[in-house]
């Protein structure tokens, strides 16, 4: 697989919203629309403290009023976990939480990374702007944009 790049068509792969029964074909979703798709290595991973899911939620109305029709968040997790993560941040109506449990989409765009501490093959962190199914812009794990991960472990049981 070759990494997806600008001018490529988004591949026709099923992602899952809320449960394994709810298939959403990403190419169909992107047809005739302007979509921002961002991917994270894992739902509930601590941080990234300075950006990502929370900041997309904050920017949601700004993005939508500038012509973006859908904001999609992808991760290699089961659909229940991915949806639950979205619910924790109140993403309903703002961001489509689409799970890629077998990494089919992530492999198709060749943006996977092996992260043994998280259980194995995951998606890289990236963001894409897709217009009518064609990738306009891709930013992969950007260095220099101030991303970091918080070490504060709020879920630790005492």
């Amino acid at each position, binding site marked *: 697989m070759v990494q997806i790049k600008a001018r490529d068509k988004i591949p026709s792969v099923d992602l899952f919203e809320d449960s394994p029964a709810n298939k959403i074909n990403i190419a169909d979703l992107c047809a005739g629309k302007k979509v921002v798709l961002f991917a994270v*290595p894992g739902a509930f*991973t601590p*941080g*990234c*403290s*300075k950006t990502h899911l929370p900041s997309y939620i904050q920017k949601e109305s700004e993005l939508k009023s500038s012509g973006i029709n859908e904001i999609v968040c992808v991760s290699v997790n089961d659909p229940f976990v991915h949806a639950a993560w979205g619910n924790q941040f109140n993403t309903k109506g703002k961001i489509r939480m689409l799970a890629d449990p077998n990494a089919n989409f992530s492999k198709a765009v060749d943006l996977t*990374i092996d*992260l*043994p*501490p*998280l259980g194995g093959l995951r998606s*890289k*962190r990236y963001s894409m702007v897709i217009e009518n199914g064609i990738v306009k812009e891709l930013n992969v*794990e*950007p*260095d*220099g*944009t*101030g*991303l*970091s*991960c*918080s*070490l*504060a472990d709020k879920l630790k049981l005492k």
Partner: protein
Amino acid sequence: MSNIFHIEDEKDFQQQLANAGEKLVVVDFFAMWCGPCQSVNPKLEIIAEKYSEKIVILKIDTDKCRPLKLKYGIRYVPTFIFFWNGERLDGIVDEANSRKVENYIEKYLATTHN
């Protein structure tokens, strides 16, 4: 010979600080599960090569070396701090930003080597 070292523990850290001699020491606190930490690695290798005679990069896995993480109050990864002649300098970069790290390197090399 590489000037990037992976630190095992506190003793190893003190040893590497001493070994650095007159070279500027850049300490990289990271975690294996942290994407931003990995995103800077290619740039760090380029930086290590570029300043190969003048700097040493010490990489500390915050999951393996918790005492060092706690000692320096590391709350985000990646975090970069700087030492010269065993003394901590005031610079700190607590995000995946190799440009900021290189800016500090340039600044310190200009002053420490006067």
